[in-house]
């Protein structure tokens, strides 16, 4: 490919990548609501393991432990709660950022404790869709622009 064409193509792709990565997407217009979840914790899982809310919802999680002391920490929101066995403990926050956030047990509860996880989905997971689109675009850029030969090992 000619140098000038390579540069043009690269610029077009860079622009495309910028759009895919940062263009604002229309938000779903759902009215914020109060949402309450009862999450049962037992070694080493949450039930339900996945909870969903919309952006702007006021989320309350009632954590109930059915065996030993467990906790629940919400990634991205940096809030947590600890529940003694048989006692319900609650945690509230406003789900003002969209995406997937892991729920992690915050109290050492046994061998597999570091892997005791759940998920909170808030609204649409733009990161995922943008990443997939970017991957396609990057693959396309790669195969059309990367030189095929010429590097010694």
């Amino acid at each position, binding site marked *: 490919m000619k140098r000038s064409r390579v540069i043009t193509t690269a610029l077009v792709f860079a622009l495309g990548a910028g759009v895919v990565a940062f263009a604002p997407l229309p938000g779903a217009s759902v009215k914020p609501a109060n949402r309450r979840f009862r999450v049962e914790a*037992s070694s*080493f*899982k*949450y*039930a339900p*393991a*996945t909870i969903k809310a919309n952006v702007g919802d006021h989320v309350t999680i009632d954590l109930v432990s059915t065996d030993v002391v467990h906790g629940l*920490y919400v*990634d*991205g929101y*940096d809030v947590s709660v600890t529940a003694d066995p048989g006692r319900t403990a609650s945690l509230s926050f406003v789900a003002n*950022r969209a*995406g*997937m*956030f*892991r*729920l*992690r047990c*915050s109290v*050492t509860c046994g*061998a*597999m*404790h*570091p*892997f*005791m*996880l*759940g*998920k909170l989905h808030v609204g649409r*997971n733009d*990161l*995922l869709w*943008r*990443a*997939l689109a*970017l*991957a*396609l675009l*990057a*693959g396309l*850029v*790669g*195969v059309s622009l*990367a030189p*095929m*030969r010429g*590097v*010694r*090992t």
Partner: protein
Amino acid sequence: MTAPGLGVSKRLVATTPAGMGSPSGRQGRAELPQLPSAPSTESRLDLLRWPLLRAVLRSRWPQLLVRVAALAGFLVAVLAGLLGTPVGNHNFGIVLVWIAWWTIMMLVALPFFGRGWCSICPIPVPGEWLQHGALLNPRRDGMGFRRAWPARLKNIWLQNGAFSGVAVCSAVVLTQPRITAVVLLAFLFVAIGTSLIYERRAFCRYLCPVGGFIGLYSQLAPVAIRVKNKATCAAHTDKSCYRGSADGAGCPWLLYPGALTKNTYCGMCMECVRTCPYDNIAVTLRPFGADLRSPAGRRLDEAFKGFIMLGAAMVYSAVMLGPWGDLKMAAYDIGSARWFAYALGVLVFINGVLPGLFLGAVSAGRALVASTQPVKRSFVSFAYALVPLGLMAWIAFSLSFVFASISYLWPTMSDPFGLGWDLFGTAHASWQPYLTRSVPTMQAIVLVGGFAWSAVTAHRIAAEEHEQRMALRQAAPVIAYCFLITVCLMGLLIA
């Protein structure tokens, strides 16, 4: 003309610029014959040109000090594993090995230095000391039988098997301090035993399950040890780098530097830098992934290593970062029926499903361009396209794991054996995950890069056989396969 022998050198000596390709100027070596020199076209950046680095790498002292420190750390980890608390995330052994070491390994050492870790790894050190009969300067009359490694096992199938074995037990190995300690000790003693029976670092080269994947991904590293001029090597009949000399041991990894085209089995121990009397070894800086551009030395066992590692990254992401409690318990409950089902599932997935689908993709590509290569050759060649995606999958997995768990290090560091110490005043630091807002974005970027890198690599591998457009057609199904894997990884890590 590449035939070895001094005849070649005599013919070329006349054109040798003064000072190049000549004995490296150490005293008492004046009797060395002149050999063909490094060509002036040498453009790679040789890090050994930097005097300080050269001194550090050539001397045995710095390496010895780091290895002794690493060995001490290793023994502390074993002791902490055996004597400290049985609670994994509060045990210094577990946290040091599976969180601290793992972080440095996956996020820094492996991507930037390839097998650099192997040059300071403590596991082969005691065995090598016995073998060399010395801590510092290897002697020719050390201990052991120095047998040749069995020819049938000169491949990495044993490593593949060992890694698969450790992988299906990982939920326990990663969380049970006593088991981690026993596994580490087993590594150490098997390495010592292997050193006493077989020659050189047979354990590292053919057995160590960690070494297997470090080797695979070291092909991507931007540093490599290579000879400056192959003609010098061809003409140098002594081959001191391979056979050893008064200056040091023959390549512990059983390699002949003059023929090196990829990093996979080079342990970066720097022995050849010390033994080559012609100063013909360079530590080069090069583009990431350069080894994947060399069609030489592609093998089925390495191809499978690629599937095993890629598959294991997916399995680990599902088991350790997924929300599926029953899957975690199946992985943890070693010996139970559900564990056998899990282990079987994992082994079939990484050794059967992934390569099987890949064979389908490769066959489709072959049909699209009516390739005349044997199927096995296409399969093996294209499998190397999975290497970048595999490393990026491990980095993406590790990012989540590492930032969530690194704060377990602070208290265990202050009280490694659970004796109530408070060495750094952090004994009571509480758990705190870091960067939980940015980690998913970092993971997404890493996976996007991994996919693009693999796509380009697949295209390049096809271009070894066809012109660019045809090559893209042949590579397309392989690229689609990589995209499918990327989608799965994103599904596991950021969805």
